C-alpha cells in the first residue's frame, strides 16, 4: 500500500501524544511545584530504496539515491525543572525550595519519593507530612502545645512553646539532589522516584551542594507558561490537520486507482 499513509499515521499519533503532553501541562497550571513536560520528536529510520552512488548500469553511477523516511515519533518526554514563581502564603508549614533540591518523603512501602511540593501539614501523630499523607524524612515531631514553628533557610526546624522565650530545635529538613533530574520517574501526586537515569540522590542540608535554601511561608507555583502551551496546542493541532490531509490525499490516490482499474 501507499507508504505515505503509514508515514502520516505516525505524524498523527505523534501529534496526538504532543497534544496529551500540552493538555497535561495546562491541566496542571495551578498545581503546586508542577514541572512542565516537553515532547521530544525524532524522525524515524530511513528506508534506502536505492543507495546513492550505486550502479545503474555497468559504467553508470546513480548521482543520488532514494531514501524514504518512515515518519516521526515522540522519543521522550523531557521534564523542564526550571523553577516556578514563588507565592507568599504566610502559612507556617508552607515551604518552598529556592534551588535544585527535593524534599524526601517516605512512601507507604518504605521507599523514598521526592517532591518539591512544600505544602506540608501535621498528621494525627504530630509528624510533618505532605498533603498526601506521606511523612517527611528525616521525621520531625511537633508537639500539640507548640505556638509557632520556625523553619530556617538551612532546614533547621525549631518550635516556640508557650511560656518559653527561646525556640527549641526539633529537627532538620534535608534535601536531595540529582545529577539528572530529567531522568526522574514521575509517579503523580507531585512525587518523583529515583531511576538509573536520574542517578542516586545526593542528600545534604539546604544551602549545601547548591541544593537550595528553604523559604518558609511560601509555595512554588507550577512552571507552566499557559500562553506558551496554548501556542503549542495551536501548532500541534495544525500539524495534526495537515497529516490527516495527507492521509485523505493518499487514500484518494488509492481509491481512484481501485475504481479506475
Amino acid at each position, binding site marked *: 500500500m501507499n507508504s505515505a499513509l503509514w508515514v502520516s499515521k505516525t505524524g498523527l499519533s505523534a501529534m496526538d501524544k504532543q497534544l496529551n503532553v500540552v493538555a497535561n501541562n495546562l491541566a496542571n497550571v495551578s498545581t503546586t511545584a508542577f514541572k512542565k513536560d516537553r515532547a521530544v520528536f525524532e524522525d524515524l529510520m530511513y528506508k534506502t530504496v536505492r543507495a546513492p552512488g550505486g550502479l545503474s548500469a555497468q559504467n553508470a553511477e546513480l548521482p543520488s539515491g532514494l531514501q524514504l523516511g518512515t515518519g516521526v515519533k515522540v522519543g521522550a518526554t523531557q521534564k523542564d525543572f526550571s523553577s516556578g514563581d514563588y507565592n507568599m502564603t504566610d502559612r507556617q508549614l508552607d515551604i518552598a525550595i529556592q534551588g535544585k533540591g527535593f524534599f524526601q518523603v517516605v512512601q507507604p512501602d518504605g521507599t523514598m519519593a521526592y517532591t518539591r511540593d512544600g505544602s506540608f501539614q501535621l498528621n494525627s501523630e504530630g509528624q510533618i507530612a505532605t498533603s498526601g499523607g506521606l511523612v517527611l524524612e528525616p521525621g520531625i515531631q511537633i508537639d500539640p502545645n507548640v505556638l509557632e514553628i520556625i523553619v530556617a533557610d538551612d532546614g533547621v526546624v525549631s518550635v516556640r512553646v508557650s511560656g518559653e522565650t527561646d525556640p527549641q530545635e526539633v529537627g532538620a529538613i534535608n534535601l536531595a539532589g540529582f545529577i539528572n533530574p530529567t531522568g526522574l520517574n514521575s509517579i503523580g501526586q507531585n512525587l518523583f522516584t529515583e531511576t538509573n537515569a536520574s542517578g542516586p540522590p545526593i542528600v545534604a542540608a539546604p544551602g549545601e551542594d547548591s541544593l537550595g535554601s528553604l523559604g518558609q511561608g511560601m509555595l512554588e507555583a507550577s512552571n507552566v507558561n499557559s500562553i506558551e502551551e496554548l501556542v503549542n496546542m495551536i501548532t500541534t493541532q495544525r*500539524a495534526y490537520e495537515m497529516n490527516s490531509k495527507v492521509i485523505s490525499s493518499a487514500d484518494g490516490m488509492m481509491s481512484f486507482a481501485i475504481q479506475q*482499474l
Partner: protein
Amino acid sequence: MDKALYLAMSGGVQTMNAQAIHANNLANVNTTGFRSDFEQARAMQVYGDYYPSRVYAMTENPATRYTQGDMIQTDRNLDVAINGEGFITVYDENGQEAYTRAGDLQINAAGQLVTGRGLPVAGVGGPIFLPPVDNINIMADGSISVVPQGGAANEVAVINQIKLVNPDSQNIRKGQDGLIHTKNGEFLEPDLNVQLVSGFVEGSNVNAVEEMTHIMNLARRFEMNVKMMDTVSENGNASARILQRTA
C-alpha cells in the same frame, strides 16, 4: 502487451515514493532541527540486451534542504540553536561522528552531555562529561562554562567546547538514522565561525504549505498515471473487439 501500461505503472509507483518523501517531511513539521528532503523525478533509460527504447521516470531524493528553521525561544540553558550555517557534532549509534541541528541538550546520569534523543555530543576534545554543576552556560562558540556544585557565582570554569562544524553541503547527506553524515566518511574539522545561541531550539525547516501543494500535485499526477493505465486497457479491449469481429 502494450508497453505503455508498464510505463504508466512505473510512473504511478514512483509518484507514490515521492508522496512518501513529502508525507515524511510533513510528519516531521514539529521535529526539532529536522531538515526536509527534496524529491525529484529523473528519466531513466532501461538498459538490457535489447534496443534501449523505453525510458522510465525514477524518483530520487537528490538532496536535503539545509536552510535554517524557525528559532523557538525556550529560555532553557541547555537548549542551543545554531544561528546561520553549521552543525553540532554528535556520536551516532556506532560511535562515529555525525552532525545534527537538534540542540535540545540534556545531561544524563553519567554526567554526559547528550542530545534530546540521547546521542552524546562531541566536544573539541572528545565526549563532553560535566561535573555536578550549579549553573551551566553555553556560549556562542560552543564552549561550556559552569559554576561547580556549591561554588561561588564567580568560580566559573570552562569545561569543554561543543564541536561545531560547517561542511560544504555538497559533501554531506542525510543517513538512514536521520543524522547528517559526510559522504566520504571523513571527520570534519571544527569551524570557529559557527554561532550558537543558548535558550533557543531550532524548529523543523519544513515549509508546510509547500509540502501540502506538492502532495496535492502528486495526487493528481498519480491519477493521470492511473488514467493512462485505464486508457491503455481500453485500447486493448477495443483492439480485441475489432479482432473478434474480423475473425
